[in-house]
Structures are given as C-alpha cells and as structure tokens.
C-alpha cells in the first residue's frame, strides 16, 4: 500500500503508456492509432513532470530581501525550497514535437482516405493485395 502511495504517479504513467502502446500496435483504425500515439506521448510527458515535482518548493529564482537602508541582506539558500525546472522545459519541447507529429499524422490519414476510401488498416491492406 505504501508503495502505491509513494509511486502513484509512476504507476499511472505506466498504465497510460501501456494503453497508448497497445492502441498504436493493435487497433486497426488509423485515427484511433493516432489518438493512442497522443496518449502514449502524454504518458511520457507526465513521467517527466512527475520526476521534477517537489512538495513545498518554488521556481528557482532567489528573492532578494533588503534592510531599511536598501542594502541586500545575505541569505542562506536552501536547496529544498527550489524545484528543478529542467523537466518542464524539456516537456515544452516534447509537446511541440508531439503536436507536429499528430498534425502530420492527421494530414497523412486524410491522404490515405482519399486514396483508399477507408480508414481501416485491414481493409486497406486487403484492397492492396
């Protein structure tokens, strides 16, 4: 039980990714494949965001305090107060990549439909053979 509470995010990530991966490989409708692809990528995004999350922490900008003569006060910086923003920045890029892939995939699906008049992979393969 403690394991589930400690690693709740990661368990959900694994479930989401497996749903996505299964859909990409097993479903025969092309649009469903693309939706599964988006789910798979969302799983990875959640994975990265989870690893950067930190309770009671803030963005890594040091707030400078001043005394009454406007001189900066020397502060002790506590690492535990600041979260690593790297993972979120990485995921911004990954989201952009994901959107581009999805858009390209949908455009391709449109072309496939106008070519074969079907979105079912099995039917398309049957019509080709």
């Amino acid at each position, binding site marked *: 039980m403690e394991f589930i509470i400690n690693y709740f995010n990661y368990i959900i990530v694994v479930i989401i990714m497996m749903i996505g991966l299964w859909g990409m490989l097993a479903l025969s409708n092309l649009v469903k494949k693309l939706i599964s692809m988006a789910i798979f990528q969302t799983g990875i995004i959640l994975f990265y965001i989870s690893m950067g999350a930190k309770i009671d922490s803030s963005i890594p900008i040091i707030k400078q305090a001043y005394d009454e003569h406007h001189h900066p006060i020397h502060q002790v910086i506590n690492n535990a107060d600041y979260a690593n923003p*790297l993972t979120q920045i990485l995921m911004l890029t990954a989201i952009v990549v994901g959107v581009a892939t999805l858009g390209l995939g949908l455009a391709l699906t449109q072309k496939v439909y106008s*070519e074969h008049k079907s979105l079912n992979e099995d039917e398309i393969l049957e019509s080709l053979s």
Partner: protein
Amino acid sequence: MIEQAPILIVVTPLLAALFITIIGLYRPLYSWVLTIITFVITSIFSFITLKKVIETGTIRYMLGNWPAPFGIEYVIDHLNALIVFMIAVVGLIVAIYSKHDVKKELGDKIPHFYSLFTLLVTGLLGITLTGDAFNLYVLLEISALTSYALLALSKGRAYIATFNYLIMGTIGACFYLLGVGYLLINTGSLNMTDIFVILSNNPTSYAVLVAFLFIMIGMWIKMALFPLHSWLPNAYTYAPTSTSCLLAPLMTKVSVYVMLRMMTSVFNYNYIFNVLGWQTIIVSLAVIAILAGSIFALRQDNLKKMLTYLIVAEIGYMVGGAWLGNANGFTGASYHIIADGFMTLCLFLAVGCIIYKIGDAQISSMKGIFTKMPITMIGFLVGAFSMIGVPPTCGFFSKWYLISGAYEAQAWPFMVALLISSLVNAILFFRIIEVGYFQAMPNEDPEAHPKQQKYNEAPISMLIPLLTTAAILIGIGLYTSEIVTYLIEPFMDNFL
C-alpha cells in the same frame, strides 16, 4: 570563423531551408541552386572540422558559451567528424542528382521538396554533432518529421507505408525519450560526457539498465533491426526516387551511429560487455537480421525493394560488429557506417537513373539495359561489387574487419552469416547482370538497329553524381588504412 565551424555546419542548412521556400516561389530552379550552394558550404565547414579534429583532437563547442553540464554542447571527436562529413557529401550528391527527377516526379512541389530536404539533413547533422541527450531527441524528431513529409510526397501506396513508418518511428523516438528520462532521474544530467562520468563512478543500478534497454530498443526500431524492420521496405520503395536516395544511406546509418555513441560515450563499454553479457543474444539477433534480410531480398522481383531488404541485412552487419565487443568488430561497424552509406547511395542512384528512363524497377523490364544505359550500369556494378565485397571497393574491407572480429570473439554464426550474405548478394546482382547483359531487349532485334538508336542514357546531372559515388567507393577502399589509423583508432583509444 574557423572556431565557429561546428555550429555553422548545422546553422547554414537550417537558415537556408527558409530561404529555399521563398526563392522557390519566384523561380523553382533557384531553390535547386540554393540547395547545392548550401551543401557546398556545409561540406566545406565539415571538412574544416574534420581536419581540425585530426590535428588537435576532440572539439567541444559550447552553444551560447554556457559551460558544459548546464548548456548544450557539441562534441566532435574522430568518429562523428567523419560521419558529419559523409552526411554533408551525401546531401550534396543527392541535391545535384535530384534536378531532373524532382521535376518529373513532383512537379510544382519543388521548393517544398528542397526545403524539407535541407531540414532533414540539418536534423541528421545535428544528431551526429550533439553531445546532449535531449538535444539528440529533438533533432531525431526533426529529421523523422521531415522524412515522413518527404516520403509522402509520392502518390498511391506511399501514404499508408509512410503512416506505418510514422507510428513505428514515433514509438522508437518515445522509447529513446523514456530512456533519457531514466538517465535524468539517475544522474540529474543530460550532458553525455557528464552522464558517462557519473555512471562510471557509481555501481550501476537496475534503473540505468532499464534506461539502456529503452534507448537501445528505440534505436533498433529507428534503424530497422530485423524483427522491428517492417516499416522500412514499403516506405522506401514507394517514395520518390530522390527521397529514397537521401533517406536510404543516411537515416538508418545515423541511428547506428547513435547506438555506437550511446554504447561508448554514455554507458560504459566495459560495463556492457563484462557485466551485462548480452552480446551473445544481440549478435544472434544480428545474425537473424542478416539472414532474413538476404532471404527476403532473394524473393523480390523489384530492384528497389530488393535493395531495401539489403539495407535490413546491412544493419545486421553493423549491430553485430558493434556487439562483438572487440576492437576489430567495432572498427568494422564504424567503418561500415561510412562504407554502407556510400554503397547504398551508389545503388539507389543507379536505380533512380533506371526508373527515370524505363519507368519502373522490375528486374524483368531490364532486358538489354547494359547496351541501353552503359554508364549507369558501370556505377551500378561498382556498387554491387562493393556490396558483394570485391577487393578494391570499401565493402571488402569492412567485411574483412567484421570477419576478423567475429573470429576473435569466436562468434561462428556471425561469421557464417556474413559469408552467406556475401554469397546471396553475389547471386542477386549476377541475376541482374544475367537479365541486363545476356537477354535481348524486348520487341527489338539487336541486329536490326544501329547501336546509336538503342542508346538511351540518363541526363548528365544524374550520371556525374553516380560516377562520383562509384569513385568514392573505390577511394574509401584504397584509403582504408588511413581512415582506420587517423580516425577510428584514436576514437577507440579514448573510449574502449
């Protein structure tokens, strides 16, 4: 200027890609000219970098002058300097070659083709240069997205083939990203050198093992190692000629390079071989890939599709060589990246010329092709001999290193598979020689016409790149010892 050469290799084509579309709206031919100029400049910069690496050793270029673990850095050592130069030269050759073919196959999409073409090469150059694991993912996706668009420029079956490639390619890239995530949790760093140092100082955990596995599987999907190869043959066969000429030599080889880079400079090569001990399994996979690729190639009666299955077999060579775990095997694998890049390019250029003149690539329609297109077939034969492994060409030397590596590691199945593959290649190419040289042309009596009328060669702008590539194949073969001594051995001294 010289100090900035590493970044200019990537920035030049990236910026040029924008201008190629704009200038192409005014006059499509100009976008072709601009592409060639771009790749000439890129080749010059990569040659400067290569020369500097040979003289002074590894170059570290920090983007924006941010110090290494925090900023992104480009690390150019002996191995990737050579591969960057190869990519730039292949890009230049295919750009020159594509003029007539693009006009015939793509019509009004010329500026878009060249823009995507340049972006694709930008992505591949970036993958090879970068020393940052996440940066590599982004560039991997840039090259993948542009390649989907380029493959789908063709019509008919290309769409569904490209769609399958898109799904498989995305799974591969996502697995790589997942592996990088595991590494980030374990080491807190994305810089390859930094990760290498941190992992070397610590006993490796299961999480690192999982990261390694994810990255390897991702790359195997991207490079089409046998059980994961299903996307490659159809996608490359139904693509426009110029696209397949560019993708076939570069995409899979760059993935192999990423695998070598991950094995040597991110994870510890000694750890992989002495602690994990997976080499027997992976080399067996490579053996299966070589045999399966060869058998599938034998079954094809379309020349272009046959070549795509040969790519699958060649991937087996490189994966097997890298996983033999000794110096000869690694030399063979890294040398074969260059050799196979130019070999595949040479064969695809020749097939492109044939398709341009005859209209399809069925082996049965190639009767009398040696009298019809003699210059094309000279280029084709040089490529074919290199695939088989006939001495002055580079194919012989990479096979020599791989076989000595297999002997040293006592990997007999791998050795047998290499020999069988050579034999199958010989059968495949002699079948074409048989049809093209000894069978008469259809509906035509060879005695009735003077030779001049039958002679129907591809345009000169397609023949020069082909013959240049054929010359490069022999040139690489003749300078093998120099390449190995000045480039591959210093790399192995650093990492193995």
